[in-house]
Structure formats: structure tokens, C-alpha cells
């Protein structure tokens, strides 16, 4: 077996073992588009080197073609990695660029040019090789200067792009606040790309030594380099395997996020904005007196701000749902029930429910942000449905909170709902009677305030 066949056997063996490892361990557990592509490349490289080891392919242009074919998988891997970092892969293979690339358009353009430049260089090297054949596959044989040109055309761009990709992986891994798993993952890919860049540099030096180093010293110098190349290849495969095997599952899946966006968020926004429009445009005119009385009754009963907000949200919903005008036609018990059910779905997921929040106002960092649970709308929807929906689907309120009594009394008083239904629902107990008294007191206070205001306005001067 010649030295070339021996080297091909070693590299072919390494590639084959790596392919088997990918096939048995990596692909079943974590199949990404890149890992499948890398596995195919490893198989191709293993077959190519096996062919070189088994069949003597030395001589003329065949040797050049075999040399180019063995370089092709590495070129394709580097091109894929660069394109993936630039976010230039087709949509079905992945679209997002690496975070550090997004803010640097020049870096993005450089990385995106990798496939074109690398394949062009490979094509040019093939032409050079076919025009001036050289012993490309005979490892230690002296070579003409054209061989150095051929190697340089392939290895210099490959080394540059690999180095650039390694740098981008390091930058991505060093992003502040990044989870440790991503740091290690990007570091592993960076090591893998550094190995490819090192192999490219080593190959260029190797080709130069074959051209310009003569005599016995040549083989003695080239042999350690050959061993180094095999070690770098193994290190590269191990680094990529480590990077690919590290997985991270985000707390919220893409499909769930999409569902929330098109389901809950759209529904709640439409519901709340339509309700606001209806109220602001003057529909539900019974609301203004009722809401003032509700606020005053809440104050008399010493309710918290949060409970007062819930009471207000409920009376507004009841007023809009019971308003016969055209502006309020979309705020129906059916729409309210749909939104309530979507909110309940979110609340079933503790992680999600705690994460989704929005500010209570513009530049109001001092106040707590609202969540689906804490926002007054959630309890208000349930309460409004209990009061309005007489179709039997509503479950009723077993032990209603005080603010619910106030809203029920207010809604009955404003003839938004049937007073008999309220009396029946609240079982006409002591709490109900106390609330009616508080509500009457609130109305008296408001009437007195209104009379005072009127007298002040009528006073001459």
C-alpha cells in the first residue's frame, strides 16, 4: 500500500466512523437539516477515500478529479455554515441569521458570498489541474508549482471563510445574558471551524513543501504534518458532533406562540377595542350614571382599587352587551365567552400565564404590569356572563365577591338586567341587602353632589 493509499485509508476510516456515529446516535435524537447534510457528506468522503485506498487512482487527470472530489464535501460544509450564519438558506432549511451578523451588513454580505466564491475557486482549481496535471493524490511525491496554485485556489478561500465563521460563532456565544448551553454550542462550532481553517492552512503549507522542499528532508517534514491533518480532522468532527448534540427547548414553542397571536391576542384586542369604541362613541348611555354609582358604592364598602376596577369593567361589559344600538353589536355573550375560554387556556399553563404581561400605561414602570389573570377583564368577563347570559350555559357564582354584588345591584337598578334574576341569583341574603343599602347611599351622595354643582352654576357672578 502506497503512502497516499495509507492516508486515504486513515481519513476514510475516520469519516466512516463519524458517519456511523451520526447515523446511530445523533440523527435519531436531534435531526437538524445541517446534521443530515453533514452525515451525507461524511458518507461521500468515506466512499471517496475508500475508493482511493482500494484502487490505485494515481496518474494524470483522474488524480486531479479525485483530489477535487475529496475536497468538495468540505467546501460544501463551509459554504452551508457561512450561508446559515448569514441567514441566506432557503426558507425550508432555516432563515434567521446569527445574531452578530444582523447588525453588520458587511459581514452578512461576506458570509453570503461564500458558496459562490468557494465553488468558483474549486472550479478554477479543477481547470488549472486539468490543464497542468500534477500528482495531487501522491502524498509525499515532489510536485510542480501548478500543484501549489491548485491547492491555494481551494484552500485559501476555504480557510478564510472557515476563520470568519469561527469568529462569528465566538461572537454569538459571547452575547450578554445568553444561556450557557448556547455558549458551549457556539464554542464547539467555532472550534470545528477553526479546525477546518487550520487544515486549509496546513494543506497549503504542505503543498508548498512538496513543491519547494527537496531530498530526504521532505518526507521527514511532511509526515508529522500528515498526522496533524488527521488529528485536526478528528477534532473537527468531534467538535461538530458536540455542538449538534447539545439541544435546547425554548419555554414557549413556535406553534403555541403563533396560536396565541392569532387566537387570544387578536380576539382580546378586537373585543376590548370594539368595547372601547362603543362606550366612547356614546353607545350604552345608561353606563355613565351606573359606573359613577358603582365607584361610589365601592368606596363606601371600602373595596380595593383592583376590585373597583373589576366592578367598573363588569358594569361596562353588561351595559355594552345589553345595549341595543348598532355600535355594540359585536360585543355579545358569545364573543365574551370565546375570549374567556381563550384566557382560561393561557391560565392553564403557569409558565405562559406568568410571562405574558403588558404595561398598565405608557411609561408607568412604577405600577405592576397586567397579566391575563390580574387584568380586570378576566374576572369581569366571567361576572358579566353570569349576570347577562340567561341561556343556562353560565355556571353562576357560588360565593360572589362584594364587587359582584355591587355590579349586580347597579345593573338591575339601571334596568340593564332583570332585577328578579339578580334577587334569585344572590338569594336575597344579608350581603345583598347591605349592598342595596350601600348602593342607595352612593346614589344619594351623587344626587346631592349634582344638586350642589347645579346650584354653584346657577349662582349669579
Amino acid at each position: 500500500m502506497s503512502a497516499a493509499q495509507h492516508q486515504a485509508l486513515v481519513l476514510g476510516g475516520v469519516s466512516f466512523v463519524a458517519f456511523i456515529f451520526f447515523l446511530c446516535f445523533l440523527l435519531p435524537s436531534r435531526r437538524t437539516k445541517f446534521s443530515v447534510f453533514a452525515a451525507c457528506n461524511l458518507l461521500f468522503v468515506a466512499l471517496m477515500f475508500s475508493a482511493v485506498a482500494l484502487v490505485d487512482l494515481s496518474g494524470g487527470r483522474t488524480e486531479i478529479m479525485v483530489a477535487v472530489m475529496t475536497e468538495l464535501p468540505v467546501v460544501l460544509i463551509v459554504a452551508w455554515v457561512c450561508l446559515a450564519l448569514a441567514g441566506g438558506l432557503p426558507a425550508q432549511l432555516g432563515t434567521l441569521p446569527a445574531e452578530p451578523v444582523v447588525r453588520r451588513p458587511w459581514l452578512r454580505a461576506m458570509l453570503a458570498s461564500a458558496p459562490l466564491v468557494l465553488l468558483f475557486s474549486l472550479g478554477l482549481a479543477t481547470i488549472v489541474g486539468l490543464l497542468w496535471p500534477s500528482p495531487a493524490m501522491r502524498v509525499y511525491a515532489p510536485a510542480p508549482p501548478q500543484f501549489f496554485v491548485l491547492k491555494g485556489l481551494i484552500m485559501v478561500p476555504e480557510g478564510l471563510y472557515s476563520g470568519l465563521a469561527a469568529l462569528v460563532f465566538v461572537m454569538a456565544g459571547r452575547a450578554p445574558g445568553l444561556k450557557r448551553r448556547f455558549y458551549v454550542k457556539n464554542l464547539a462550532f467555532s472550534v470545528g471551524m477553526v479546525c477546518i481553517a487550520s487544515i486549509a492552512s496546513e494543506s497549503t503549507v504542505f503543498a508548498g513543501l512538496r513543491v519547494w522542499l527537496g531530498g530526504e528532508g521532505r518526507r521527514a517534514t511532511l509526515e508529522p504534518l500528515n498526522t496533524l491533518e488527521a488529528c485536526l480532522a478528528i477534532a473537527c468532527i468531534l467538535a461538530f458532533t458536540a455542538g449538534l448534540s447539545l439541544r435546547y427547548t425554548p419555554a414557549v414553542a413556535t406553534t403555541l406562540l403563533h396560536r396565541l397571536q392569532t387566537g387570544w391576542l387578536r380576539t382580546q384586542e378586537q373585543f376590548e377595542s370594539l368595547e372601547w369604541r362603543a362606550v366612547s362613541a356614546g353607545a350604552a348611555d345608561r353606563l355613565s350614571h351606573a359606573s359613577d354609582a358603582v365607584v361610589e358604592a365601592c368606596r363606601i364598602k371600602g373595596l380595593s382599587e383592583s376590585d373597583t376596577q373589576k366592578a367598573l369593567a363588569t358594569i361596562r361589559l353588561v351595559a355594552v352587551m345589553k345595549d341595543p344600538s348598532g355600535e355594540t353589536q359585536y360585543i355579545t355573550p358569545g364573543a365574551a365567552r370565546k375570549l374567556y375560554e381563550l384566557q382560561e387556556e393561557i391560565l392553564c399553563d403557569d409558565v405562559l400565564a406568568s410571562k405574558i404581561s403588558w404595561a398598565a400605561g405608557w411609561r408607568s414602570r412604577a405600577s405592576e404590569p397586567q397579566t391575563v389573570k390580574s387584568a380586570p377583564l378576566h374576572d369581569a368577563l366571567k361576572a358579566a356572563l353570569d349576570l347577562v347570559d340567561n341561556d343556562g350555559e353560565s355556571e353562576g357564582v357560588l360565593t360572589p365577591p362584594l364587587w359582584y354584588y355591587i355590579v349586580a345591584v347597579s345593573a338591575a337598578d339601571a334596568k340593564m338586567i332583570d332585577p328578579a334574576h339578580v334577587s334569585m341569583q344572590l338569594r336575597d341574603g344579608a350581603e345583598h341587602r347591605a349592598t342595596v343599602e350601600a348602593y342607595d347611599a352612593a346614589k344619594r351622595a351623587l344626587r346631592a353632589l349634582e344638586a350642589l354643582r347645579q346650584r354653584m352654576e346657577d349662582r349669579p357672578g
Partner: protein
Amino acid sequence: MRVDVPKRDLTGPFLGKLAGFWRPLRSLSVAQARVDGTRPLLTAAEFQEELAILGLSGRRFEPEDYSDALGEYLDISIAVHVIPDSWHPELSRLLAISGRLGELRYSEQLNIAAIFVPGSLPPLVLTLTILHELGHLAAGDLLIEPDESDEDDQHAGEAKFTTLPLKKGKKLARGDPFAEESLREREANLRASYALFAGCLGDDSPHAFDMYDVL
């Protein structure tokens, strides 16, 4: 949204004639671009790219942070005015009757944008309305010259929609604004919802995670 486009000083007769020759040529080039320039609606992944440009990808942020970062990137001053109902009782009613929730004004000359929203809006709607108007700024919708906007009927189910090329001004989005106003509104809504979720989730967002795991 309203845009104050600065008037060009073409008062000289020579410049006037030149402008007369130029107008049909420019219309021709715009028409050509309309035929060629199409793109689909913004995806969550593309929005994540925009956030990365603003330095907000993988971070929890409030609409204020998004507004500040966008203003800094576009090199304009963005002011958000939440008007309490007691100040202008008619504002809410007028907006509600016109079917709008907020108003965006932009002055190219002064390099300022102002968003006006009524304070009586429910908090979630207020947040989304502000993000919606900021979305118009990010998309470069305000850089469209009034005579270029196109109301051609396009099928809602189409995957790609006609865009308008911009000759000047800076925008955050990679793609040009849509020619049809309803699509610009739809995309501003999408941007608002993406921004809300991205701001809530921070590095738990699956799209933020994709940018650190490209292979």
C-alpha cells in the same frame, strides 16, 4: 397616520420644465418597480431580525424601549402622547367614531414623529396601538410619497403583495412598504403583536433562540 412631506423648491421656469419632463419618466420607473417588487407579509422570524438590529433580540423590553431604540436607529425623535380624556373629552369620541384608536404624525423636515392615543384605552389595546404606530415607522410606510400609494385590489389569499420602492429616508424593515394601505395596516398589526410577545418572552422566545442556534 399623517405625513408632512416637505415641498420642493422648483419655482424656477427651467426647473419647472425639467420637473415636467421628469414626472412621466419617474412614474414609469415606479410602475416598473411595482411589477417587480413583491413580498409576503412580515414573519415573526423576520421581526426578530429587526429586533436584533435594534439590540433588543433575546431581551425583555417594554414598548418604551422599542420606541427609544427605533428612534435612535431611524435618527428621529419619537414622542408618544397619551391624552387623558379630561384634557380633550372629544378626542376619544372622535377617534372612536372614525374607527381609529390612535394617530401618528410625522414631519420629515423636523425629523420628528408624534403618536397620539387616548388615555381611556384599555392597557392592552393602548400598548398594541402604540406598537402598531411604531410599526408604521419601522416599515417606512411614512416615507411613501402620497402620489405613489396604490389602492389596486389584490387578493387577500395571495402569498406575495406589491411593494413600493423608497427613494430616500431610513427604515428598519428589509422589505419595501406595501403599495396597498390595508396591507400596510395588517403588517403594522403583525409587528405590534410580534413586539408584544418578543418583549414579554425575552430569551424564552423561540425566534430569539433560533439566532444562536443556526445549525
